[in-house]
Every structure is written in C-alpha cells, then in structure tokens.
C-alpha cells in the first residue's frame, strides 16, 4: 500500500492503484462530470431547446415536449443529488483506503478536490463539499489533540514503540520498515508509526515523488502485487496544503478513523435534510394572499412554495419570470401549477412593471459568497434591484451545505461566470460587426438581499462570513488548483 505525498491526480491514482473498483468509480464520475451529465437543467451547458426555432422557444407542454423533458430530467440531476453522489464516492474512497493520519487524509481530499475542480470548475458545489470535509478532518484532529493524547492509549493498538515526543514531533526513523502484504488485509494501524521516507512509495509512474526515493529503493523496484511498505508520512516531504500542517497531523490516532467517518455521515445527512429544514420555515415567511415573484427554475424554491401551499395551506400567487436563456421559469410554472399553486408567467422585461404589486421576491442561488453576495441566474440582479427600488424584500432561498463559497467577488459580474449560446435571440452571429453575449450568471451584491433562508435558519448577508469560518478552514485552498 503506497502512501500519498502530493495532492496531484497522478499520485492519487497511484494511491488507489490497488483498489481498481474505486478508480473505476472515480473515473466514471469524473467522466460524467466532464460530459455535463450532472448539469442542472437550469444551468445546463447547452441551450435547453437546441432543436427549436430560435426566437420562438415553444412551451414544453406538447406531448413530445414533455417526453423530452422527462428524458432530460431522467439523465440530469439536481446539484444536491450531484453533491450527494460525490460525497458517497469520497466516503467510499476514504473508507476503503488505508491512510494512517489526518495529514494523509487531507492530501487525499485535496487531490480529490483538484480532480473535481478540473472536471467541473464552473460549479463550486463539489469544491465546497471537499472543503467542508477537510475542515471536518481538521476539527476532529484538533479535538483529539486537545486532551493530550496519552501514549499508552495509542500503544495499545500498535506493536511498535511510540516515536513521538509530547510536542508531537516525530522522532525520526527508529524502527525498520514494516513490510505487510496487501493480501493479508492486516490493519494498517499495526504499521502506523514508521516514518521512513524511503519506504513511502513504490511504483510511481507520474508522481514527482521520484526524488524522494532512496538509492536502495531505486535499485530494487518492486513489481506490482509484491508486499509494499506502509507507514506514516514524513511531514517534510508532503506537498499541497499539508505542508503547512503541524506535525501532530501526521501521527496515528486510533479513534480518528471512526470519528471522521461519523463526521462524513453527518455531512451527508445535512445534504439530505437541508431542504426539509428550509421548508419548515415556509410558514414563517409566506402569508396568505401574497404575491411572490421568483426567477427562473429552482428546485429548492419549488419545494419551499409547495410546502407553504400544501402543508401550511397558504393561498398565494406566484409570478415567475421566465429566465432567459434557459427559460426555467416555464418549467417551474408547469410544476407549480400542476400542484394547484396559482402561477403567472411573465417575460423578464415585465419584472419592473409588475414589481409594485409584488410582496416578496424569492431568488435561487448558484453560490453564496463570502461577503454575503450571491451568484444567481443571469437576470436576477435586475430582480433584486427592482425589488429594492420598490422596497420589496428580496429573500434568497438556498441550502448552505454546498453553496457557501469562501471566495469574494473581486471579478464583479464575472465571478463564476459561464456563457451559453444566445440562440434564443434568433440572430445569427455570422453577420459582421455584431457580438452576441449570453452570460449564465449574475452577481447580486449583499446590500440588495434582505435575508437568506437556509438550512440553518434565517441568516443575514452580513452574517455569512461567520458561517464560513464555522464550516471551512482558512488554511484550506479557496480554489483547488
């Protein structure tokens, strides 16, 4: 079993070499990310109706249209489902591989984060989840550290003498490499405390760990399948964020794995339960005979409104702006009105004209930024501006579990921006002297947002920074590159 020193794709692959099923699952997942199979319908890469005449996007109500929509939705999943899938993949990798310390686990997570980022950079949900898990690992490690680990408790599980001093600094290579066979399935903890960099890794094809190899190792490269050395990492040789880790992150702690896996489960539960917690607040925010304006398509808002309508028995009217270029508003309107909610669809340009009649603006979020601003579907910035001009509260309904991002909107409207075909305008770009632009996202500054309705309750934009420091660690990378 090799150790992982560097959070690169190659070293992660080497690390997983012995677990072909994990590699397969990871590659399948990355491939489907790259193919855009997890694209949320409302943020999908391609214009939603490529086959239709530009300029006259027809409503998806005809029989064939609905069929098309169904097959589409059968393939495409929401972002929360995508995040859940990614989480489960991460859990199976972390649960199966034989990492020995939190430092090593952090390197694995960082490598996964980089892989996800390179496959699916436009959506921050995967990076956010990884960052969250990394913070979890750190927290567990800190929790274990605070009551000074007693050498006795640890040595129970190991056959080797403990090689750390109270300060947590490894004392170096005191014991010979402990060779264990992969086939014996001996728990790796038995060989936990070896810190011989020479024995860290074997068959490195792409990794830059070559330079760490000792001469002796280079002379006798081990073929695959031969028992490989296993041991804790040498903190001085690691790369990535693990470089900055204090030495005690590279120690073996018996209860660590158990605690981390429990924490992972909690994060997964959070993902699954997030919407339920949001929905519970529906009655607090929607009163009867209200006129609510919402923009484009959002599964969270749809469920939120349905909850208010069905459970809380509130009578309200929803005005949905269609939300070019994807026209998610049309889909949303169909979904809501089929459940008995009164719905009116409007063109995006009519938002400002109708705003004086609106009581509440609900907006979806693609990402929530560190300053309390929001990345939302393009056109929603206008919604928020118009609401503010009419003193109508703008409320962003979103789960924080995977949408909270640690970055600031230094790029303005360009943050997390993505572009799609402006085919819906029905103008050919072949003509000279004409540029066509169709951005997918808008950045909404925090001063336009009255409230966030999240899975942790109502939150002010000015409070988001505090939540950030709770779920993420400042030392973890803001962008996995």
């Amino acid at each position, binding site marked *: 079993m090799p150790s992982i020193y560097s959070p690169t794709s190659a070293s992660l692959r080497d690390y997983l070499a012995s677990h072909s099923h994990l590699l397969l699952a990871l590659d399948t997942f990355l491939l489907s990310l790259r193919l855009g199979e997890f694209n949320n319908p409302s943020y999908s890469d391609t214009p939603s109706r490529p086959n239709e005449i530009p300029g*006259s*996007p*027809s*409503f998806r*109500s005809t029989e064939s249209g609905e069929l098309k929509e169904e097959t589409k939705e059968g393939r495409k999943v929401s972002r929360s489902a995508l995040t859940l899938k990614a989480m489960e993949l991460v859990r199976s990798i972390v649960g199966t591989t034989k990492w020995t310390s939190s430092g090593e686990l952090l390197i694995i997570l960082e490598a996964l984060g980089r892989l996800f980022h390179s496959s699916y950079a436009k959506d921050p949900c995967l990076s956010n989840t990884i960052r969250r898990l990394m913070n979890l690992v750190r927290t567990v490690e800190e929790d274990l550290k605070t009551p000074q680990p007693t050498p006795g408790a640890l040595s129970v599980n190991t056959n080797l003498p403990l090689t750390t001093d109270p300060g947590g600094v490894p004392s170096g290579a005191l014991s010979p490499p402990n060779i264990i066979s992969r086939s014996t399935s001996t728990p790796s903890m038995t060989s936990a405390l070896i810190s011989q960099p020479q024995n860290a890794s074997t068959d490195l094809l792409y990794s830059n760990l070559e330079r760490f190899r000792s001469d002796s190792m280079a002379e006798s490269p081990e073929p695959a399948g031969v028992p490989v050395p296993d041991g804790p990492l040498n903190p001085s040789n690691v790369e990535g964020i693990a470089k900055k880790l204090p030495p005690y992150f590279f120690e073996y702690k018996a209860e660590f794995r158990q605690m981390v896996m429990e924490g992972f489960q909690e994060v997964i539960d959070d993902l699954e339960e997030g919407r339920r917690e949001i929905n519970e607040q529906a009655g607090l925010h929607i009163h009867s*005979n209200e*006129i609510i304006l919402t923009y484009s398509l959002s599964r969270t808002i749809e469920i939120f409104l349905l909850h208010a309508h069905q459970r809380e028995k509130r*009578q*309200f*009217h929803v005005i*949905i702006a*269609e939300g*070019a*270029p994807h026209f998610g508003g*049309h889909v949303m*309107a*169909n979904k*809501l*009105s*089929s459940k*008995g909610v*009164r*719905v*009116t*669809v*409007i*063109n*995006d*340009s*009519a*938002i*400002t*004209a*109708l705003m*004086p*009649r609106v009581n509440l603006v609900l907006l979806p979020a693609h990402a929530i930024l560190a300053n309390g601003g929001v990345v939302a*579907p*393009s*056109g929603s*910035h*206008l919604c928020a*501006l*118009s609401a503010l001009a009419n003193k109508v509260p703008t409320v962003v309904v979103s789960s924080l579990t995977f949408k909270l991002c640690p970055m600031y909107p230094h790029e303005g*409207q360009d943050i997390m921006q993505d572009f799609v075909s*402006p085919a*819906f*305008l*029905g*103008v050919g770009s072949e*003509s*000279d*002297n*004409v*540029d*066509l*632009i*169709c*951005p997918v996202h*808008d*950045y909404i500054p925090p001063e336009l947002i009255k409230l966030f309705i999240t899975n942790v309750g109502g939150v002010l934009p000015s409070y988001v920074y505090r939540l950030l420091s709770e779920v993420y660690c400042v030392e973890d990378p803001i962008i996995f590159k």
Partner: protein
Amino acid sequence: MSTEEEKEAEKARKKAEKAKRAAEFAAKNPNGFTKPKEKLSKAERRAKQEAQRAAKANEADKSKSSSKNPKNPKNPSSNVDIGSNNDPQASASRQVLSSSPQTLALPPPILNNSNGNSNRKQNTPPRKSSTSSNVPFSQPPSTLNAQSLFSHLSPPMKPPLTKTLSPPPQTSKSIHPSTVTLCNAYSRFSITGSNSRCIAMLECFKKIIGDYEPPKDKVMSMDLTRVLKENFKVITESRVHSISMGNAFTFLKNFVTKIKHNEETSVSKDNLLLAIDQFIEKTVQFASDVIAKEGSTKVKNGDVILTYGCSTSVKKLFAKALDQGKDFRVIVVDGRPELEGKKMLGYLQELGIHVTYVGYNSLSYVMKEVSLVLYGAAALLSNGSVVCRVGANGVTLVAGAYRKPVLVCCETYKFSKKVQIDAITHNELTPKPDEFKSSPCSDWVGVKYDVVGEGVAGIVTEFGIVPTTSVAVILREME
C-alpha cells in the same frame, strides 16, 4: 367592407338592441312581474351592474381622454367580459357580437383551467361571454390571478377579425375603409412605436378628410368633428391609442373646429390637409431631427452606448453622431417576446456601427462597460414619469446601480398632462404569445409599457436636454 359582413353586423345589432330593451325592461321592473325570473340571468344582472359602474367611472374621468363619449349605461352587453372593463370604448366593438343569447348559453370553454386563471383567448366573442358567465364569478372575490392583477385594464385585443371591427350601429356610414385597414394593422401590431402609429393615424385622417363631403344641412366643422371622432373611436378599439395619437387627434380636432362657416369646402379641406402635413413634418419628424442633433452632442469618441427597443429618434441620433465622425459602439438590449431591438440591430448594421446584441438577462453583465444609456419614450407625463417600452425601467435601474447616465429621447408632442406613478394603474395588456397558448395550466401576463419614475438624467427634446421635472413647465409654455 363586404355586404355579408354588414348583414352579420346588422343581425348582431338587432340582437343587441333586443337584449338592451330586455335589460331596460328588467331594470324598470325589478320584481320581474311580466318576465319569467330565470330570463334575467345572472350574467345579465351582472352586466347591468357593470354597465352602471362603467358609466360612473366614465363620468369620473371624463377629462381623461379627448375621445371619450359615454355609452348607454343600460346596455346589457357592454361589459359581459368579466366585468373587468371600465372603458366603454374598448368593449364597444365586441358588445355587438357578445350579446347574442346563444353565445351566453354555450358551455364553458375547454380551455379554462381548474384555477380559473385567465385565458387570453377569451376575447373571441362566444368564449368571452361564456367565460364571464361561468368561470370568473365562481371564484371567491379574494382570488388572485392575472385577471385580478389587471382586472382594471381592458383585455388585449384579439388580432384581426374584421367582424370585431364592425362599427357601432349609428356610425357605420362614417367609418372610412382606410380606418378599417389601419385598425387591422394596429391590432396585428404590424405598426408599432408611438411615432409610426401617430403618423399612420394622421395619414388615415388625411384620406378621410380627402373623401369627406359635408351634408348640405350640416355645418362642416361640426360634422367633420363627429366623423373624425367616430373614426378615432374605432381606431382606439383596435388597440388603445398612444398618447402621441391622442395629442395629434386633439390638435386635429382643434383645427377642425376653427373652420369658418363661410369657407369653401375645398379650401377648408386643403387647409386641413396642409395642417396635418405640417404637423407630421414639423412636430414629429423635424422634432426628431433636432433631438438627434441635440443628443449627438452627448456622444463622445470611444463611447459605449446602450440602447433598448427601437426608437426613431435614437436611430436618427446614432446616424447623426456617425455623420459627425464620432467613434462609438452600441449595445442593443432586447426583451422578449417582441424583440424590437432586432430592428435597431439591423439599422445599426446598415450604418456600419459595431453592435453587441444581448438579451434582457445580460443587462447586468454588459452594463459595466457602458458609458451612456439612450432610449426613446412613448410619452412623458407631467409628474416627470417616462412612459416607454416595457423593460426600459429595468434598464434604467441597472444603469443607476452602475452609475451610468440615462438619456431619454422624446418629442414634445408626446408630453401629456396626465400623471402616473407606476406601470400597473394604466397600461396595455399584450395578447398571449403563441408559445403559451398550448400551456396546460399556467397563466401568462404581459404589458406593453413601463413607467420610469426616477433614474433618468435628462430628456432630449427639440427644446434641448431638460430634466424630467421640467415636463410640467414645458407643457405650460407650449399652451
């Protein structure tokens, strides 16, 4: 108009009169002694109430429109549609057909969804009457839908049914064929934009005046005023008139009333035609030329100008600025469903100006690089509100958020003494686009105009660039 259509109109008229008599009778005999009670149907009672309410409303805002002339409040058919229509003009053409007793007996249309959300097709006469007698009234009064959001506005006109254009009975002789053509063009939205609509209407009036022969026993100024008023009324039935049209009609009416009794008919007609030509030339076209000149002074080299919709004066302004050798590029923002900006795009391409064409959703994204926002107005109200194409308010808001100056081009003949502070109280509903007609359950609503209350740096008029607050002053000066 064909004889067949006339016959049909005649038939419908008779029916209407019959229904009217019945309602009057019912009104005089509230207990319904001589009439079986069930004959005074729910719809009829409601229609009566509505008609009374309409009459009241009409009295209240008589000053609102120069062309208003009160309908017979007792007419049972005048407001069969949903009771949403306080404007007797708008319903005048439809009353003829909708009052037919058979249509009232029709089953509710299949199109109606369970919510009773409006379906925009209801202005097909038979459907309308059945819709009104069944669906909307079965809802509790607190029910909200698009209909109730805009129940104070007349429903959008149904595009072209020559039948609906059949003139009200007593005036049929005065309606000129070119009026019918014009009405069709208006209701199909083939003539849009306040300038074009106004010019088309004046051209139509020129034909009417050209063909006009005063009856021997009547004074020309009086009779011609009546004829023009009747034609104008029919025109407004095809589509609610713009303020530019209203103002132009007021001008024409004033001119007609000044015709001297002893003047030769041909001389008066020539004078009138000349006056109309001068109005078109000076007040409309020359004004926009001056606006183009005034506005182009604000275009600097390297400017990025954002425009919305397709305004004649803005077009002229771009051409003028290009003539002056200014180097600038234009961002055309467009709003669905009309996508009027395409016309602007085509025009600018012909001029050879570099254009960026974006949808309404891209507004916030492109605003950063803009140095000036320019669009045309449909009207300017005396409280400083700018009435313009729906969506322009959003453009102004985003421009305000990015601290970009907004200039609005507007000829002074579009200034009005009216006041309005939002786009809901008075607006024009648009017909449901085709893509929504097949929609199973959702409702759609669209309006034509936006009212921009603030955020406009200046209005470019033929008198120079002035702030919006100066509208009232200019109006007073113009008098």
